[in-house]
């Protein structure tokens, strides 16, 4: 009979569940017109949970080993909670303006999805893993198509497309993951990761393993599972895209890390090959396809695909160090990309997101937004003094140490290509003249959104100036996974 103390590793997730129920209850009693409180409440609760993650001990295992709390799980919980809190802050005004009566729905879905994200990295049972994945994924598809015909954004048709594509491709990939898992279960007689890790290598197990991982690759948008990404980013509410572009990717990488470093530890030879393929394909396709984009959201979508390629270099290295560097990259990328999309929301609130033309002359209309955007772009491009530089250098170093010198050279060359499109955005904001009709006053940015952008900016600059604590906690987390 499990006791309450067994649930220690799940303390934060239970807290999140409590927060979810609280938001639900408050939504029921709040009158129309006061629903804005829900967003504030969500942000406050997520911030409190994030703070609690530094004081609560979550080590240990629960449910007879199906769930293991460790530094690894804790790091991902923190990333998810922080991303959730920042995205909530960024979305407050958007949701209040465009979906005034459905605010509870929006934030509840966000919280449900977050619950899946915080649970997943600790899962040590494949069934639990898949359930967490779906708990995360289904609310995301609903959020992507959140705009309706009666809303004021005028983007409902794109929104429907965004949600449908996300859902359809998600469903197919989940089906294939489950198909792969059926092989794994059939061959090993267990869904427990510890048991699977001890199973002998056979072709059928290899097939099952690859199907399982390929399904996960969909969520992180690695090429060739990336096609939903630009369409979804273009159609969904921008503050939600900010969240979508970082948190599920982190979780997807957590799942792949689990499979790679624990479940299929002994059989992972072909997995490393596939990781290499993902790296090359994602970096090439992401970088080249971003070049001709004029819509900044699509541009950032492809750039995100390329970024995933760089992150996967850490897995392709196949070492603990590689995993650690990937974790550091994920944390830095989360702060950067969230910030970049939030700036896009601030620049064109309530309109279909900005094209390069919309950004022209931003530095003169709104110097701080332009500066923030510039810093985020530099971080994405991997220029020193911001976190993106350390992130790229770290994964390059891990890959080089693992004997993948050619991959590093390739990554460095493609980074030059990517610099081109990041500079296109910076050029529009800094060097191009604003269009005449845009000489109007600068976009008014609400306080919560501005706060979220400032926090992202501080993180990006701070992690760039003093990456030490982040590198250390990434290293600890990676080691905790290697020791199961």
């Amino acid at each position, binding site marked *: 009979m499990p006791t309450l103390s067994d649930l220690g590793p799940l303390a934060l997730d239970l807290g999140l569940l409590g927060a979810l129920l609280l938001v639900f209850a408050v939504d029921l009693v709040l009158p129309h017109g006061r629903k804005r409180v829900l967003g504030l409440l969500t942000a406050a609760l997520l911030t409190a949970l994030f703070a609690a993650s530094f004081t609560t001990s979550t080590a240990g295992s629960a449910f007879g080993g199906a769930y293991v709390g460790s530094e690894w799980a804790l790091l991902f919980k923190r990333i998810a909670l922080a991303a959730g809190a920042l995205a909530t802050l960024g979305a407050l005004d958007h949701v209040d303006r465009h979906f005034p009566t459905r605010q509870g729905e929006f934030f509840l879905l966000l919280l449900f999805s977050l619950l899946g994200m915080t649970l997943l990295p600790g899962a040590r049972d494949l069934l639990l893993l898949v359930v967490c994945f779906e708990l995360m994924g289904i609310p995301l598809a609903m959020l992507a198509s959140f705009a309706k015909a009666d809303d004021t954004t005028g983007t409902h048709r794109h929104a429907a497309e965004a949600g*449908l594509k996300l859902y*359809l*491709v998600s469903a*197919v*990939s989940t089906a*294939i993951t489950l198909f*792969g898992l059926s092989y794994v279960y059939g061959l090993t007689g267990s869904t427990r990761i510890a048991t699977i890790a001890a199973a002998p290598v056979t072709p059928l197990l*290899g*097939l099952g*393993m*690859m*199907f399982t*991982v*390929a*399904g996960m690759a*969909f969520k992180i948008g690695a090429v*060739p*599972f990336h*096609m939903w990404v*630009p*369409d979804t980013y273009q159609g969904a509410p921008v503050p939600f895209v900010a969240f979508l572009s970082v948190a599920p990717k982190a979780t997807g990488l957590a799942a792949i890390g689990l499979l790679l470093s624990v479940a299929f530890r002994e059989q992972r*030879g*072909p*997995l490393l*090959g*596939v990781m290499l393929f993902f790296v090359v394909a994602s970096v090439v*396709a992401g*970088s*080249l*396809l971003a*070049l*001709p984009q004029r819509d900044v959201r699509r541009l950032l979508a492809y750039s995100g695909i390329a970024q995933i390629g760089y992150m996967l270099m850490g897995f392709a290295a196949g070492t603990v160090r590689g995993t650690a560097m990937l974790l*550091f990259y994920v944390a830095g990328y989360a702060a950067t990309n969230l910030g970049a999309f939030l700036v896009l929301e601030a620049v064109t609130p309530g309109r279909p997101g900005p094209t390069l033309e919309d950004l022209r002359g931003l530095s003169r209309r709104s110097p701080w937004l332009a500066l923030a955007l510039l810093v985020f772009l*530099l971080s994405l491009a991997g*220029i*020193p*003094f911001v976190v993106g*530089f350390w992130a790229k*250098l*770290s994964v*390059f*170093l891990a890959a080089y140490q693992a004997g993948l010198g050619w991959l*590093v*050279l390739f990554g*460095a*060359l493609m*980074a*030059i290509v990517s*610099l*081109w499109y990041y500079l296109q955005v910076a*050029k529009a904001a*800094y*060097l191009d*003249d604003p269009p005449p009709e845009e000489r109007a006053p600068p976009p008014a940015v609400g306080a919560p959104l501005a706060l979220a952008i400032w926090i992202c900016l501080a993180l990006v600059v701070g992690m760039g100036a003093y*990456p*030490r604590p982040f*590198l*250390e906690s*990434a*290293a600890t987390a990676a080691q905790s996974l290697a020791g199961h």
Partner: protein
Amino acid sequence: MSPLYTALLCTFLPLAAALVLVLVSPLRRAGLAAGLFSVATALIAFGGAVTLLLERWSGAATPVRETVRWLPHAGLGGGAHARAVIELGVQIDGISATMLVVVTAVAACVQIFSLGYMAGEPKPDFGRYFTWQSLFLFSMNSLVVAPNLLQLFLGWELVGLVSYLLIGYWWSKPSAARAAMKAFWMTKLADMGLILALLVLFVDTGSFDWTVTTSAAGAVTLLLFFAVMGKSAQFPLHVWLPDAMEGPTPVSALLHAATMVAAGVFLVVRAFPLFEQAPTTGLVMAYVGAFTALFAAVIAVVQTDIKKVLAYSTCSQLGYMVAALGAGSQVGGFFHLTTHACFKALLFLAAGSIIHGVHSNELSHMGGLWSRMRVTSVAFLVGALALAGVPGLAGFFSKDLILEHVLERGLWAPLGALLVAAFLTAFYMGRVTLVALFGRPSAHAEHAHEGGVSLLAPLVVLAVPAAGVGWLGAKLSGLYAAPVHFHLSPVGMVATGLALAGLGLAYWMFGAPQGGGRLRAAFAPIGRLARSGAVNARFAWGYGVLGGVSSIFAWFDRYVIDGLMNGLGYATLALGARLRGLQTGRAQDYVYVLVAAMLGVGAYGAFWSR
């Protein structure tokens, strides 16, 4: 104050100035006040740098190297190098103290000059310009005092970033924006060499220090040199430098003459212990440097824009430095960097003063300035003669040193190239000087007049070292190496003879102002050359041949080298546009791709696990 704190003051005071200008917007928008504030901090930094140099000068001070732990081994190090710790810090020795003085002196002069030169700009733009200037001084100083390659790289990147902002300063000019993009992109391409060099060095030795012994010295130094080629504008990565002349002229004086482009050479001087371990890289550098020196000098002969002449001249002189370092002469390379910074900054500022007076960059719009702008003309003349290598002036000493070393190494082909370049340098500087200062005045030049004190004072100040710094060579080199003793060597005499011949030829061809009338008839086929000034008809054929060769080189540079670089870019862009067709936007296609990819991946896994 201890040397450490002085060095920190030199580095961080300009950063503080930049931050104050960013944060205190009333000060920034005040215009002149912002400029004066920035100038004051630059002067204090200069004072600190001079103190550091004097301490070393007196021989009392030992090199200072203070570092703090920054990143733990758990982060970037570890594995085979579990003890490795990345440090941040300051290293003050003869090299960095000299470089600090050069950088802060030129920066202070350029900022004072800018007070007058940019006076017509709107006040907020003026303040913003000085914000970038202060930020640039910080980045350059942090590069100079760096105790290891990683920190040097951080400063190096920041310098590149700020140069992007400074070149693109004139936003309304599309050409300036394009030039800024290009300069940034091309130097970033080269910088990847530096990143890879850092990785290889670190994995091999567990350190970013330049004093380590490494088995991978060849790879590390070649990668480093690739970055140097980009930053210090060596063939074929030099194409961004002439384009960058679109920026304000004082910016060109600071970035493209004295400091930023010299950072590449400085990197080699700094990491010289690494380069000494790789003789092959030295050979490559000697040949690339000498070729660049010759190639750029040839192109400079036909340029009609005074800034373009100086830009190609900078490429050429940087080639000299690189060749010297390749020939194993740390002193030669660094001493030429020092002298070049003085006279080239002087030339650019004098050219800025001329442009300010004439309102044009074109040589054909100048002429007769000697009587109208006397101070500027004298300053320009001093700089030109120093660059040409006239005995007694700065350039003479450092060039002599370089040629001697190249000869000692028996590098005959580079030696020949450098000697021809010396001749051409004297010739094109003679041409510019004679046409601009003594030629027949054009309509533009009729009303030319000197600018204010802030334009002239830096010229007077810089003219002193441009003329005299060569005499300090023995003492300066003694600060970081065995002191060199200058004596007029045979090869030095040959070079001096060639330089005087170049000046003489220029005088013979451009010195006679009455040649203007016949010129147009004689040069109808080479119309572009005709605009470059009065040419004595008797030498039309000679100039025609030289000009022809030069034009061909310039064409090659403009359309083949530059075109190749651009073409690479366009090809990539086109590829991106073609690939775009794959994204059909139809959900069923996405599912097909998904299933196909999964089957492929699954088959691979099954096959592998056989």
